């Protein structure tokens, strides 16, 4: 469990990136942190693994104040994948990159190799194991960075903008991998602007603006509140926009539909398509 208590942080003493953030994340939760560029999302998650230390307030990990622990000690518990993969990749093959973290955390050679190959398959990096990460595309490098952390299966996985540069198939794979980690009791925290990904895959959403948390709750509630969307510079997804407009014309059309399958069946119902029989 992570407890953030009234954390303040400023990089330069002039601009305050976090102004009194409090947040509790229970074991096994799966949540999104959303908000404008510069809202403090990345600054907040860098406190989870000790990369940044609060200037006031506390970060408590599994009951202990993180100020008493080194980053290396926290790394066993909290794995962070940074927004820019180039900040964390440094070895000359994809395989070495993934195995590096595993060995550092004390996994045996055999175990490390096994986990490495499993993660490579889960994230669609087959065929790239012996390539240099720096010869790969942006989206592929991002997945190597994800793999290097996900392979260690830390108790808490924190991903900063994991869907950047990923096509629809890769996003689906990532979602499945996060789901499976979650099912095995891991906590998953995703910083993202990808509202469609959040709606489909993350049940809780924390919305940030100007260094504070402006909303925290069930994703479908937080993200259907126009004020919060506005505050976080989010725009409603296409299907929400369509649903709102259709609700005006056809009062029976539910206003708050966001999932593709729901919108499809409602449109079919209105247009009297072949599968439109209402049970």
């Amino acid at each position, binding site marked *: 469990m992570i407890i953030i208590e009234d954390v303040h942080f400023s990089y330069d003493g002039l601009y305050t990136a976090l102004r009194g953030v409090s947040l509790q994340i229970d074991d096994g939760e799966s949540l999104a942190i959303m908000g*404008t560029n510069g809202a403090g999302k990345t600054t907040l998650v860098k406190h989870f693994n000790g990369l940044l230390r609060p200037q006031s307030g506390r970060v408590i990990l599994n009951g202990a104040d993180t100020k008493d622990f080194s980053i290396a000690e926290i790394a066993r518990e909290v794995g962070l994948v940074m927004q820019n993969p*180039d900040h964390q990749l440094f070895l000359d093959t994809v395989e070495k990159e993934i195995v590096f973290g595993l060995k550092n955390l004390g996994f045996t050679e055999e175990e490390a190799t096994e986990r490495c190959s499993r993660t490579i398959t889960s994230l669609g990096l087959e065929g790239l194991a012996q390539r240099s990460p720096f010869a790969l*595309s942006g989206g592929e490098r991002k997945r190597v960075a994800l793999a290097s952390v996900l392979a260690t299966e830390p108790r808490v996985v924190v991903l900063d*903008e994991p869907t950047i540069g990923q096509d629809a198939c*890769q996003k689906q794979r990532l979602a499945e991998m996060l789901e499976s980690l979650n099912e095995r009791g891991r906590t998953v925290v995703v910083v993202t602007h990808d509202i469609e990904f959040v709606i489909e895959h993350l049940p809780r959403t924390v919305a940030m603006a100007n260094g504070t948390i402006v909303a925290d709750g069930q994703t479908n509630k937080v993200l259907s509140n126009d004020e919060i969307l506005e505050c976080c510079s989010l725009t409603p*997804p296409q299907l929400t926009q*369509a649903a709102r407009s259709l609700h005006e014309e056809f009062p029976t059309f539910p206003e708050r539909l966001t999932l*593709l399958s729901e919108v499809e069946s409602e449109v079919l119902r209105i247009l009297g398509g072949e599968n439109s029989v209402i049970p």
Partner: protein
Amino acid sequence: MPLVEFQDFSFKYYGADSLALKKVTLAIDEGEYVVITGPSGCGKTTLCRAINGLIPQFHRGYIAGNVVVNGMNTREHEVAEFATTAGLVFQQPENQLVTLNVEKEIAFGPENLGVEPAEVRRRVEELIDLLDIEHLRDKHPHEMSGGEQQRVAIAATLALKPKILIADEPTSNLDPKSAETILEIISSLNRRGMTVAIVEHRLDLVAKDASRIIVMDQGSVVADGRPREVLVDDICEEIGVGIPKATLIYKRLAAKKVRLSGVPLSGDELASLVKESGST
């Protein structure tokens, strides 16, 4: 003559075991707004690098065929010679920011090309205004969020007054509102005559502005045409291109023999088409 012409062009990075581009032939005319999309690793970034001469001048490797940009063959001219023709905004903005504050960053390119100080000054002010980055003027790029850095990177690229703006996923680090702002800026540049080639996965945001979408897969162009034609092509779903959700609904309805009278690219377009069909 097209502004950019790929003539049966293939490229393999030094040390790689497969081709990043395979016999690509395509032409981009002045004034076009081209979206390049396709699965991760399909060659989109390589295509961008081949337009401004980074390939083959900086990234070495095996090459076949030619790329001719503004009448210059990229085999025969230095990257610097393409600087005022083809402006490339990278995927990771911080990989291209080199100075200590925004003013210097925007001035860096034109100063290097020997542009008059007064003109450099003018361009800096114009671009700070255009990209709405006054509040960042004295900030160090490393103190900015990814989205802020991207705006600065675009300003610095435009300072060279290129004929074609090539943007490699320029909105991927941006929140949706900032992404819309950037895309609106790019689209208004296009309306004023700037040729645009943009790599983008989020087709829901760009399809409405684009005059053309090029879909790539494994180094080849697999579809090329108007957005409303390309996005309903089954190839998009087969290779994992995330078509706009409104367009996806159109396709799913069509599969169930429910035809809307047009292909929607946005939520509002979908709603109007459904209303139209529902009232007849």
